[in-house]
C-alpha cells in the first residue's frame, strides 16, 4: 500500500503585522490530488495565507511544510522550484512582454544553460530555447491562446489574461497550484468555462489545487473540501453541504440577525 503523504501542511501558522494579527492559528493539510477551496469575507486573511505559502511573507509563528520539507522563510523563487505555483487576485502578467514570452519565462527555473552560453548562443542553449518555445506553444494551444502569441500580454481581454496567468503558472511544472480568485471579474459564461478549465488542468497536469474564491457557484461546484475564514480565524471546514448550513458561516457572511430572522 502506498503511504499517503501530505503535500502541504500548514501547522498552526500565525501572521502578525505589528499589532495586527492577520491570520491566527491556521491549520491545513492538503493531500495530493485534492481541490480545496478557501472562502471568507474581504480582509479575512485569505491572500495572506497564499503569501505565506509562496514565501512572500514568513509566518510569525510556526511552520509550513511542503512534501515534508520545511519551507518557512524560504525565498519565493526557491518555493516555486520546489513545486508551488500561484496566480494573483489582481493579475500580475509581464504586460509589456509578448504572450509567448510570458509563458516561456515560466520555464525559467528549469533552464540549465549558463549565462555565457546564453550570450554567445551556444548550440545547447539554442536547443533548450527551442524546446521551451515548443512546450510553451503546446500550453498556449491547450487554452486557445496560441493565436495571440506575439501580442503584448497587457493587451489581451481580461478573461484571457487570467487564463494566461494560469498557463504561466503551469509552465513552472507545479505540484501544487494556488489560484487567487480566478473567477474575479468574469461573467457567468466565462465563470462556467473556468470551472471546467480548472477541473481539466487538474486532471491533465496531475495537480493539487488550492483556491480562493468569492463566487460561491465556483467553490461549491468544484471543491470537495472548503475552509471558511473570518478575521484571520478559520471558522469552519467541511464539504459544500456542511458549509452552506453552518451557522458560523452564515453569521460571517450575512450578519448576526440573519440567523434569527
Amino acid at each position, binding site marked *: 500500500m502506498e503511504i499517503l503523504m501530505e503535500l502541504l501542511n500548514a501547522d498552526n501558522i500565525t501572521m502578525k503585522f505589528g499589532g495586527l494579527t492577520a491570520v491566527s492559528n491556521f491549520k491545513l493539510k492538503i493531500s495530493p490530488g485534492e481541490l480545496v477551496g478557501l472562502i471568507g469575507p474581504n480582509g479575512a486573511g485569505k491572500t495572506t495565507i497564499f503569501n505565506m505559502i509562496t514565501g512572500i511573507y514568513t509566518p510569525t509563528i510556526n511552520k509550513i511544510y511542503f512534501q515534508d520539507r520545511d519551507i518557512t522563510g524560504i525565498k519565493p523563487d526557491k518555493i516555486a522550484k520546489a513545486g508551488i505555483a500561484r496566480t494573483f487576485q489582481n493579475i500580475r502578467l509581464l504586460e509589456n*512582454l509578448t504572450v509567448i514570452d510570458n509563458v516561456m519565462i515560466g520555464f525559467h527555473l528549469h533552464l540549465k544553460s549558463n549565462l555565457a552560453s546564453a550570450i554567445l548562443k551556444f548550440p545547447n542553449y539554442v536547443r533548450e530555447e527551442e524546446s521551451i518555445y515548443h512546450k510553451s506553444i503546446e500550453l498556449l494551444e491547450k487554452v486557445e491562446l496560441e493565436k495571440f502569441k506575439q501580442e503584448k500580454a497587457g493587451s489581451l481581454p481580461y478573461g484571457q489574461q487570467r487564463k494566461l496567468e494560469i498557463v504561466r503558472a503551469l509552465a513552472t511544472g507545479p505540484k501544487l497550484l494556488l489560484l487567487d480568485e480566478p473567477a474575479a471579474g468574469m461573467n457567468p459564461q466565462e465563470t462556467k468555462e473556468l470551472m471546467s478549465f480548472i477541473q481539466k488542468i487538474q486532471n491533465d497536469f496531475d495537480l493539487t489545487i488550492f483556491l480562493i474564491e468569492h463566487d460561491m457557484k465556483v467553490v461549491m461546484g468544484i471543491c470537495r473540501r472548503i475552509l471558511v475564514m473570518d478575521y484571520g480565524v478559520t471558522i469552519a471546514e467541511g464539504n459544500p453541504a456542511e458549509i452552506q448550513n453552518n451557522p458560523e458561516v452564515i453569521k460571517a457572511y450575512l450578519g448576526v440577525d440573519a440567523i434569527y430572522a
Partner: protein
Amino acid sequence: MKKQNEKIFTILALIVLGILVYLAENNLDAYKLRILNLSAIYVTLGVSLNLIYGFTGQFSLGHAGFMAIGAYVTTLLVLPPYYKEMIFILEPLVWPFTVMKAPFIVALLLSGLLSALVAILIGLPVLRLRGDYLGIATLGFAEIVRIIANNIPQVTNGALGVKGIPEFSNLWWTVGVAVFTIYIIKGLINSSFGRALMAIRENEIAAEVIGVSLTYHKVMSFAISAFFAGVAGGLFACLLTTIDPKAFMFVMTFNILIVVVLGGLGSITGTVFAAFLFNFSLEYLRPIEAGFNIGPIVIPSIPGLRMVTFSALLLIVILYMKNGLMGGIEFSWKGLARFIRKIFPNKKSSEGSVM
C-alpha cells in the same frame, strides 16, 4: 530574411564601420575626433546603463562612480613608474601602485572587473531597495567613490588629479569597445537571462513566484553594467589624458541618463543614436551660449544655456515620446529591409525575394 544573410550583413556593416573609422582617424582633426571618441564612449556608458535601468528596471545613478573606479585603475596601470614618482607630489604613491604596469587592454579589463566586483559588493545590500530609494542609494555610492578619490592622495593624487596619462584611446578602441558592449548586451537581453531581467522590470513579485531569483539577476545585471562603465571610465581617462575627482560628479551620471532617456529606456538603437546626438549637439550648441539676437531681442551670453536646451528637450521627450526619440524601434536587418521595401515598393520587390 535568413539568419545566415543577417550574419553576412552584420559582418559587412562592421567592415564598413572599420573603413569609416580608418578614414576618420586619418582625415579628421583632433577636435572632431574628440567628439567622435566621446560619443563612442557614451554609447558604451549609455548601453550599459540601459541594461540595469531600461531592461532590468533598477533605477541606478551610480555610473559615475563605476567610471571613476575604472578611470583610476586604468590610469594607475598605464602610467610609467618613473612618471608616477614625478606627479604624486602631495603624498608619494603607495606600493604596489608604484610598480604596477600593464598593457592598455589588460588595464581596461581589470578596470571593468574591479568595477563589477564593487558593484556586486554594493549591489547585494542596495538592490533590495526599489525605485527612487535605489536611485538615491546608488547616487550616494557614486559620491562616496568621488569623495574617497579626493581624500586618498597616496593613490589618486587627491583633488590635484592625474595629468599626462598616455593617450591610448583612439577611435579603434572607443568604437571597438562600443561594438563589443552592444554585442554582449544585445546577446544578453535576447536570451533567457534577458527575459528574466525584463520579467523583473515588469513585475518583481510575479517574476519571483515564477522562479526568477531576484538577487541573482539584479546583482548580475548591475555587475555587468558596472563592468562596461568601468571599461568606459578607463577609455575616458586615456582620452582626456587627465582625470580628477571632479570629472565624476553627478553631472556625469546625469549626462548618461539623458542619453538613455532620450534614446528610450530599453532601446539599444536609441541609446546609440542619442549618444552621438548628445555629444554633437553639446558642441554645435556652443554658439547659443555666446549670446545671439532673435530679431530685435538681444540674448546675452549665458554659460550653461546648452544644458538648459537639453533639459527642455528631455522634458518634451518624457512628456510626449515615452519610448524615446527612436520610438522604441530596435534596429534589425529585417526591419531595414521592410523599411526599404516600403520606400521603394517596385524596385525592391525582386531583391526582397533574394533576402
